[in-house]
């Protein structure tokens, strides 16, 4: 069983520092601008720094420490060779404004990655500029806006199901849209009547995740597509859950006009503790001319950066995107090739396997349709009522079993929700261990569960204190 190391590691500025005499004066800085004393960055020896961060790393849990079944996050194994290749100096030591003839290799990778993603999703063109999924959503919303504006249509509403990721409504709002939320039905899918009611000539787009965040496939997708397009609106695909249908079905064939993908989820690039990610956006032909510049094109055997795009929305960040993340995803895809279908099949099998075993245990409830895709959401509402165990308690207790907890309290429509996404890279033994741990927790003395975790570097944390006291830098202590 995994055990955290635990250190009483001081803050960097409390480590013993060497004595220094530093002058910040320079004749080349205008007098009015000179800094009077050096910034208070501690002066340490390399081995102190390395040991400090090594110790911190040991108080952190990553996918290589063990199972990490965060729902909607697709925490799969990140192949090492992808890291190595993306770290080659031929790729890293490139200036974005070098002549394009001197980074033909990287352009080839981006061009070929675009071709691969087009085939996987059924879209007609991709941009790699978004730095993350939410950034891709924001770009998607800008495209929706530009498209309707050019057609002279005044459409200001984005429809979103109540199961959507929080980034969906936030991105729509950032691009200046009003957000209309619609409920899900008892199956856990889009309520078509509710959709019909809100669709109008004010509707700019409908944002949908498929399979949705309940892990359920929107099987009425073609009806949804027809309704949305009949209303003159666009259909947007949140690609967070693409893992479930890789090689099996394509958002492009379902009628989606815009998709964003998360390379740091579906295509095995590491999440980095919060980034860098990459959120490429793919579109159908009708939106291609609105994409950010530059586009990468192939002319003969040369790759070029094309800035000549009539209706481009311009830029959403500097330069071309999080390039090293794209390189890692490209390497991963070359290694998977047409076998990505296995990714979908086994991720869905693993998820249904866990769901079925947990269902048989009788401790948890499984609302909505029984057949799940790559993730499932269960409720521990009964455990809360009978034993006073909340989803939060169960999550914290899992840490004592050396396991990373699932996503909890999301989607918002399931009470005491526990959202599990095992991915395809866990062994059956890993899945069994996780299921056994959940069952064992449900059977445990609730007082023990409620006072967990006890085997982590710190015990349960007082988050309210942090909000009240606003200690946000070492100066505040």
């Amino acid at each position, binding site marked *: 069983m995994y055990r955290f190391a635990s250190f009483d590691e001081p*803050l*960097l*500025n409390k480590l013993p520092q060497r004595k220094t005499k530093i002058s910040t004066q320079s004749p*080349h*800085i205008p007098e009015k*601008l*000179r800094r009077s004393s050096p910034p208070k*960055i*501690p002066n*340490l020896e390399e081995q102190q720094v*390395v040991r400090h961060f090594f110790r911190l*790393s*040991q108080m952190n849990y990553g996918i*290589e420490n063990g199972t990490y079944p965060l729902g909607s996050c697709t925490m799969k194994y*990140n192949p090492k060779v992808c890291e190595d*290749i993306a770290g080659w100096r031929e790729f*890293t030591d*490139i200036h974005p404004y*070098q*002549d394009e*003839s001197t980074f033909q290799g990287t352009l080839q*990778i981006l061009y070929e990655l675009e071709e691969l993603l087009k085939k996987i999703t059924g879209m007609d063109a991709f941009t790699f500029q978004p*730095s*993350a999924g*939410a950034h891709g*959503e924001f770009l998607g919303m800008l495209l929706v806006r530009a498209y309707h504006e050019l057609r002279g249509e005044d459409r200001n509403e984005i429809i979103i199901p109540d199961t959507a990721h*929080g980034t969906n409504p*936030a991105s729509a709002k950032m*691009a*200046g849209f009003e957000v209309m939320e619609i409920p899900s039905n008892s199956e856990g899918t889009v309520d078509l009547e509710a959709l019909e009611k809100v669709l109008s000539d004010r509707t700019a787009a409908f944002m949908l995740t498929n399979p949705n965040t309940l892990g359920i496939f929107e*099987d009425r997708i073609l009806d949804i597509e027809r309704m949305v397009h009949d209303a003159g609106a666009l259909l947007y695909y949140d690609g967070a859950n693409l893992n479930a249908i890789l090689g099996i*079905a*394509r958002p492009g064939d379902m009628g989606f006009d815009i998709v964003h993908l998360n390379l*740091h989820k579906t295509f*095995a690039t*590491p999440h980095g503790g*919060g*980034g*860098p990610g990459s959120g490429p956006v793919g579109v159908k032909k009708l939106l291609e001319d609105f994409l950010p510049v530059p586009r990468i094109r192939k002319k003969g055997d040369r790759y070029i950066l094309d800035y000549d795009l009539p209706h481009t929305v*311009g830029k959403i*960040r500097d330069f*071309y995107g999080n*390039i090293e993340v794209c390189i890692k995803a490209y390497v991963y895809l*070359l*290694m998977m090739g*047409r076998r990505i279908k296995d990714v979908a099949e086994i991720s869905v*099998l*693993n998820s249904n*396997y866990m769901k079925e075993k947990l269902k048989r245990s009788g401790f948890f409830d499984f609302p909505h349709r029984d057949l799940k895709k790559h993730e499932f959401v269960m409720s521990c509402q009964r455990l809360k009522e009978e034993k006073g165990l909340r989803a939060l308690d169960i*999550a914290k207790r899992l840490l004592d079993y050396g396991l*990373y907890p699932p996503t909890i309290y999301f989607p918002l429509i399931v009470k005491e929700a526990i959202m599990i996404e095992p991915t395809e890279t866990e062994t059956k033994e890993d899945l069994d261990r996780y299921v056994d741990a959940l069952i064992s927790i449900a059977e445990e003395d609730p007082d023990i569960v409620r*006072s967990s975790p006890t085997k982590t570097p710190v*015990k349960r944390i*007082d988050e309210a204190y*942090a*909000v009240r006291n*606003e200690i*946000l*830098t*070492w100066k505040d202590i």
Partner: protein
Amino acid sequence: MPFIPNLSLKEEMLKEIGLKDIEELFSDIPEEVRIKDLDLPEPLSEEEVVKRLREIARKNRPFPDLLSFLGGGVKPHYVPSAVKHIISRSEFYTSYTPYQPEASQGYLQAMFEYQSVISELTGMDISNCSLYDMSTSLGEAVRMGYRINRRKKVLIPRSISWERKSTLKNYIKGLPVDLVEIEYDRESGKLNLEDLEDKIDGDTLCLYIENPNFFGIFEEDVDEISSIVHERGSILIVGVDLLSLALVKPPGEYGADIVISEGRTYGTPMNMGGSSLGIFACRKEYLRNIPGRIIGLTHDLDGNRAFCMTLQTREQHIRREKATSNICTNEALNALALLVYLSILGSEGLVKIAKKNLENARLLHDRLVSLPWFKPRFKGSFFNEFVLESTQDVFYMNRELLKRNIMGGLPLEVSFPELKNCLLFGITEVYDDKDVDMLIRSIKEVYHV
């Protein structure tokens, strides 16, 4: 098949959950949308993929094989080996956002330290723990400004990069605000204060300045600028080069309300411009309006020191469309790289490197203007980038230099038509006299001297 251990256990697992065929798991996907023929290549082995990528990599010419003197905000800096080693600890780079603080104390402490060093460098009260890049930081800063004062006029210098301007325009598309550009002084290259006085008014949301600015020049008159902005009750947003802050007065000391910066190349390579690190710091009174994650110090049940994400009610996963920003995934690992980079350098190393940048820039500048084809375009003092005007066609010169494995300065006339034949040069501490010699020699060759 690699990375899919249960592939060989498919039958066994299906049987255990009472299914016969894997197809049953996909019975909810309508036939009409099923892929009939998956058009993807055969998988490559790890060895094959390495071989293939070696061939592709050969088509790139990295620094310093291609010796670049490009300015424009990105330049190579030396990254100590320890940085890569630490950020490659898989406990860090394979973790997710620290939603479970008890299992993420290491990263959380590091991000608290990151917020602390950013606050030290910029002289601001608080920092978030990263946005995507400096341009998106500018977009978020203006959006935050709008939440604070609800004014309509956004002032920016005409002399910012076109990419940043375009990004900003997109970030404020959803707001009822107008962008107004402030001219630069054609002689000094600094912000034109008269134009600022003319355009600023009681409905001005903010003024954004860069220091050093896009032309590499220090905005000396920051105190005056700050008074002009604050007299109108507007917000002063300052974009800085982090390294310059080793020697330059932190914006907090001259009244900046929000400070943004780019962390790319300080601890991470150029990577063709990405990934990046958007730095965002501000005054504490704006705390509840900040975009992005913030780490706070607290304690656990036993009273031990602990860290957690805090003030999450600003964020999209809780507030949805009412959130301060849509950002979720940020640039955490690059923030960690910057923190480790700064920890290894210390203030001593940082000051030393900043001085080396100043000296190298003067060396390059003086050597270039000693040639008959260049003269300084602006009079203002500069950090590690500067603009020279050439008597020659700079595109021709750059093409010829490229044949000699050199990238000359960045031609500015594409974005600034009035700066015909002007080049933005950049240099850092990783260059030495020989590199400068090679550039000078090559330019002479181009003109057959």
